[in-house]
């Protein structure tokens, strides 16, 4: 019954959402003129939500905390927004925006987070976790002194060793299409099959995980039952399809407090229900948009409790509720549907906002109407990021999602072990100083002589750096293996992994920060003359640079090739080391807002950057060094090889509206051409901001004037007012491409 009207295919025989979408979707190649405005009901609900957000900001960023319970699927009584005629139900706790406590990553983090906002973790929770090992405790039982020192000095930072690793995307659509009962049945069959084979460490581990998955699928069903829904069975219409999908997501964020909790790729899936129901006269356009609007309001309400330290790294309370929109199908037809538009249209109906993290999968072959609509919305809202579908589709098929900002994975088939990032400019300083870190005055790496050349020689520096990168990669893999072994052991993603195939492909995602700083530093050594300046103890803490040198960001091969060589060599070095569960090594060039913190931990560098100053975000050229305009800058970034950085290459592009043209029509056409040109060169990712610097300066002084000012930073969007002063200043300093 639930499947009436759908075209049959492989998806009817086994779990295969990709096939369901492939054979049932209705590609849409028109423009946005069919879209409907929000209803009065939606406006009223939105006004209530906005009032709650205002109160949340007034209370220092956290509205309320439930300190008595531990967050999970069935911890809280059902939460509703009484009197607002919700269409899609389910809150994380019993009250909107009230945050739950999730100590599985580490009890100390949970305790500190409560205290930071004037709360105290209850004795009940404290008592309970006295007898429980957390992921954090597990990790620190095994970390070596060397790893601890690298972590403390900030050579590797932001590691998920005290909070949930996140980056796992459950295939929440499976709940809607098949119902939980069928999913449980399939998991039982898998478990039995494994039990029939040899029981060894990996099969025993998997078997226990399957036990947990089945257990949590049952809990998921019970959670929905509290709202009066039987999700044991497939969804019968559009509202149920959205609701069932959302329950899956909701369970995921109740159970896990991972940094990035993506939604996946749901809009075209939902569109199939919408098309069928509209054809049968069950809903009209207004009603469908209202469902999507309501769903997106719920997604915007997702919250996790974090510590102030954490907020330094990932500012603005992000959750990366990333939704991948658009792209092309393997059959050559587009995956853009009317619901792709409807999803983006929430930016208009509900106002601009950072979440969900709208991610358009860009292809040269996307329908022109859709391209233009995206560009227009980017110009109006600065809330969209773009990723190259033509680059990813051959590798991940046509049903992949984006974990966090830029990490592609096949939905329900791949997962990743998130590994934050390593600080390359700092590694460079440590290398020149023979393993000594001048910022913490600690010997961190293998001891060698401080480089004693009067003028630094490029080949010698490169060889020295190379040997320290070998050391870094070796320790980095070890660190990640420990973290993810322990996360699987003590904080396994039971609900989310239940919404994956039993046999998943695993990535281990390493990261690089400060690529442009190191590239320009090496360019200075190669093309100008760099004299190291030593401190009283004989360590290099500064440089005297004579002459000019080419800088990354100007489309100059002589320097861009250094950046390419660094990334190519990094992944090669990582691959020398065996990973936990045979995960595939990948690298991202992405910083979130941590480029500020990484800068603080790094001494002077030969590119002219002073001690403590921020790095450029992601793969961006350093602020103000790209002298030939935006496209030369993008061309430099486009040279980095996706093969070496399969976890993503993030680039943030800010331009004034006037530079793009005088009227919105020309502006959006030009923006489309920019993206076609950039992605046509195998570039991977682009954050687009179209705004005037003056507006940000004004917003810094008068935040009340701009309550919804959203901007894209590295890999996500953020409400500008939620950034710290230092982060705001860094964003304002960035290059704004401008032509007078």
């Amino acid at each position, binding site marked *: 019954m639930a499947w009436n009207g759908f075209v049959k295919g492989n998806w009817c025989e086994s779990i295969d959402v990709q096939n369901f979408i492939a054979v049932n979707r209705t590609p849409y190649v028109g423009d946005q003129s069919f879209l409907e405005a929000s209803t009065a009901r939606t406006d009223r609900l939105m006004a209530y939500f906005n009032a709650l957000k205002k109160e949340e900001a007034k209370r220092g960023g956290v509205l309320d905390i439930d300190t008595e319970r531990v967050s999970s699927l069935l911890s809280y009584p059902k939460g509703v927004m009484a009197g607002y005629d919700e269409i899609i139900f389910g809150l994380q706790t019993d009250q909107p925006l009230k945050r739950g406590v999730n100590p599985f990553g580490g009890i100390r983090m949970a305790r500190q987070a409560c205290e930071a906002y004037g709360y105290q973790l209850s004795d009940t929770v404290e008592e309970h976790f006295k007898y429980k090992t957390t992921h954090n405790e597990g990790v620190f039982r095994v970390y070596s002194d060397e790893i601890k020192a690298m972590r403390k000095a900030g050579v590797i930072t932001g590691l998920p060793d005290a909070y949930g690793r996140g980056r796992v995307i459950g295939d929440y659509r499976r709940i809607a299409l098949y119902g939980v009962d069928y999913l449980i049945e399939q998991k039982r069959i898998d478990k039995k099959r494994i039990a029939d084979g040899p029981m060894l460490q990996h099969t025993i581990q998997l078997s226990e995980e399957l036990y947990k998955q089945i257990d949590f699928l049952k809990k998921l069903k019970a959670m929905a039952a509290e709202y009066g829904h039987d999700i044991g069975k497939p969804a019968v219409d559009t509202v149920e399809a959205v609701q069932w999908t959302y329950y899956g997501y909701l369970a995921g964020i109740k159970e896990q407090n991972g940094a990035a909790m993506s939604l996946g790729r749901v809009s075209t899936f939902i569109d199939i229900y919408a098309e069928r129901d509209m054809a049968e006269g069950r809903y009209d356009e207004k009603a469908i948009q209202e469902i999507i609007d309501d769903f997106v309001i719920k997604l915007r309400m997702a919250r996790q409790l974090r510590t102030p330290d954490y907020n330094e790294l990932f500012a603005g309370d992000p959750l990366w509720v990333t939704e991948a929109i658009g792209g092309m199908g393997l059959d050559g037809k587009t995956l853009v549907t009317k619901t792709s538009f409807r999803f983006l249209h929430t930016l208009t109906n509900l106002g601009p906002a950072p979440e969900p993290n709208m991610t358009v999968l860009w292809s040269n072959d996307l329908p022109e109407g859709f391209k233009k609509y995206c560009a227009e919305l980017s110009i109006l809202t600065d809330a969209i990021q773009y990723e190259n579908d033509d680059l990813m589709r051959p590798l991940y098929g046509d049903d992949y999602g984006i974990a966090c900002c830029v990490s592609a994975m096949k939905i329900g088939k791949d997962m990743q072990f998130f590994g934050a990032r390593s600080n390359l400019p700092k590694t460079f300083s440590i290398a020149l100083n023979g393993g000594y870190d001048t910022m913490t005055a600690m010997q961190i790496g293998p001891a060698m002589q401080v480089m004693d050349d009067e003028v630094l020689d490029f080949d010698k520096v490169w060889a020295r750096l190379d040997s320290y990168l070998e050391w870094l990669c070796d320790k980095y893999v070890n660190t990640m293996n420990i973290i993810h072994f322990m996360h699987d052991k003590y904080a396994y993603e039971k609900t989310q992994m239940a919404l994956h195939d039993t046999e998943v492909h695993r990535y281990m995602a390493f990261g690089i920060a400060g690529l442009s700083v190191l590239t320009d530093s090496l360019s200075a050594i190669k093309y100008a003359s760099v004299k190291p300046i030593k401190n009283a103890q004989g360590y290099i803490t500064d440089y005297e640079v004579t002459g000019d040198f080419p800088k990354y960001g100007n489309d100059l091969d002589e320097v861009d090739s250094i950046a390419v060589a660094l990334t190519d060599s990094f992944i090669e070095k990582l691959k020398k080391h065996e990973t936990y569960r045979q995960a595939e090594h990948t690298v991202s060039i992405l910083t979130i807002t941590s480029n500020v913190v990484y800068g603080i931990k790094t001494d002077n560098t030969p590119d002219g950057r002073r001690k403590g100053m921020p790095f450029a975000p992601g793969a961006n050229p350093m602020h103000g060094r790209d002298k030939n*305009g935006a496209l*030369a800058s993008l061309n430099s970034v486009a040279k980095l090889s996706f093969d070496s950085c399969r976890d993503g290459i993030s680039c943030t592009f800010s331009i004034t509206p006037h530079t793009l043209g005088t009227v919105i029509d020309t*502006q959006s056409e030009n923006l489309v051409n920019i993206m076609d040109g950039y992605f046509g060169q195998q570039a991977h990712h682009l954050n687009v901001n179209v705004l005037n610097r003056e507006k940000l300066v004004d917003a810094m002084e008068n935040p009340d004037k701009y309550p919804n000012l959203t901007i894209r930073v590295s890999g996500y969007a953020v409400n500008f007012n939620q950034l710290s002063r230092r982060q705001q200043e860094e964003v304002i300093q960035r290059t704004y491409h401008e032509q007078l």
Partner: protein
Amino acid sequence: MLLRVHSIETLGALDGPGIRTVVFLQGCPLRCGYCHNPDTWSYEAGKMMTEDELFRRILRMKPYFKDSGGVTFSGGEPLRQAPALLSLMHRLKKEEIHMAIDTSGAVWSQAVDEVIHLADLILLDIKHTNADAFFQLTGGQLKQVLEFLDVLKRDAIPYWIRQVTIPGITDSEAQIEQLGKITASDSRERIELLPFHKMGMTKWEKLGISCPLADVAPMSAAVTEQLQIYLSNI
């Protein structure tokens, strides 16, 4: 051949259709009182670049041009380097790159003649339509500009007419009407007024030269828009 280049802006969307790579060539015979790039005047400043290097740089931007964009040679006065430019343009033509020349029309030579016939579009900035006022504002001769314009009309070379609207100098309806009339022809694709702004003033200060229009207020965008409507109705 070498060209003297002030700078390259790879993302221009204002000087010609679509996405433009704007090559600012160094050196200009005029001394417009409102110039926002006085650092492009000198024939000695800037950086010498080979034709090859420029050709390569422009070609790198081809993916962004699609069916509308291209390269715009601006300045300074790009036509002062017409011989070298001509050789570069022949190579770009073979690559089917759309080429625009942003000029004051104040120079003439055999090479200039060839350049404007090879170009796909001329952006002709007519500083003023009255000969005396033109001289006072720029130090150049209007007569030369009008002869240049005649060639565009005669040979049906596509062109845009532009003028900076300056309070008290070019903002009279009479002057604007005159601009509309003398530039009219079938190959004129667009005529636009650009409001005088003072964002280039810091450059004058940096160069240590005093700007004769330093005390003139910036032109209101709204008034300019009204004048543009007036112009379109002529």
